[in-house]
């Protein structure tokens, strides 16, 4: 098993970990990583966790998840959100972001992704 696979497994394990502090670790290290592949894996892990904390990171934070500057990461995150079986929590957070977020670009992104999720 090479280091890439090990890293993917560590991120996957953090997404499945019972301890909620795993979300903070993923946000702190994964979403801030210079490597877009790591950010993509981290965003996927946060979407799959499907909790309020984890979805808030990839929806409401500037430069992370759907707001990532790398379009591959942003589009990958949106794809993962569309693939969710239960989208209720994601839609709720998207609505909150659309209403309450102060950053205009984040607000716009949330509105667009919400429309996509509602259509899917």
């Amino acid at each position, binding site marked *: *098993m090479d*280091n*890439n*696979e*090990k*890293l993917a*497994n*560590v*991120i*996957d*394990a*953090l997404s*499945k*970990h*019972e*301890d909620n*502090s*795993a979300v903070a*670790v993923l946000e702190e*290290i*994964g979403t*801030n*990583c*210079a*490597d877009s592949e*790591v950010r993509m894996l981290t965003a996927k892990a946060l979407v799959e966790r499907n909790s309020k904390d984890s979805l808030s990171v990839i929806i409401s934070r500037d430069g992370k998840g759907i707001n990532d500057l790398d379009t591959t990461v942003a589009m990958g995150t949106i794809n993962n959100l569309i693939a969710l079986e239960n989208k209720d929590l994601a839609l709720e957070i998207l609505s909150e972001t659309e209403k309450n977020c102060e950053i205009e670009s984040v607000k716009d992104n949330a509105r667009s992704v919400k429309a996509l999720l509602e259509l899917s």
Partner: protein
Amino acid sequence: MQINKISQKVFTPRAKTTQNHTNPFGVSFKGNIITADVFESAKKVGLREKISEKITQKGRLAFNTVLGSINSLNQKISGRFDSVISFGRRMREGMRNVTEFLNESKLVFNFDSSERFFRMDLANNNYSVKNLVKRDVTDLRTEMINLIESRGIING
């Protein structure tokens, strides 16, 4: 000879006295045919009783033996069943372990080299997701940082 003088015994059915006796000589006593049982001596009767007792005792012994053998057979059969059941359990446990092992293992094909066309990544490592989830989050954090750094990336 008048009919009314004829003894009534003449009209008694002979079959009543002659039926079911085993006396081959037809010896009679006071007009009654003596059956064969009368001739059996006391000695013989006693012998027969003893024989019957012996048979009964032997029967009891045989019955006890049969019972004992049935019990031991039951024990043997149940013992064998227990061993079969424990063997089955061990087999099932083994199969479960093998299944888990194979589920977590991975067959990697290497098309670049003809020498090692494929290799199997064994599951008994610390980096399977199943094992990683059991570890503490702080450990996973350290692990994540080390693995990112090993890719030649300085974390921002």
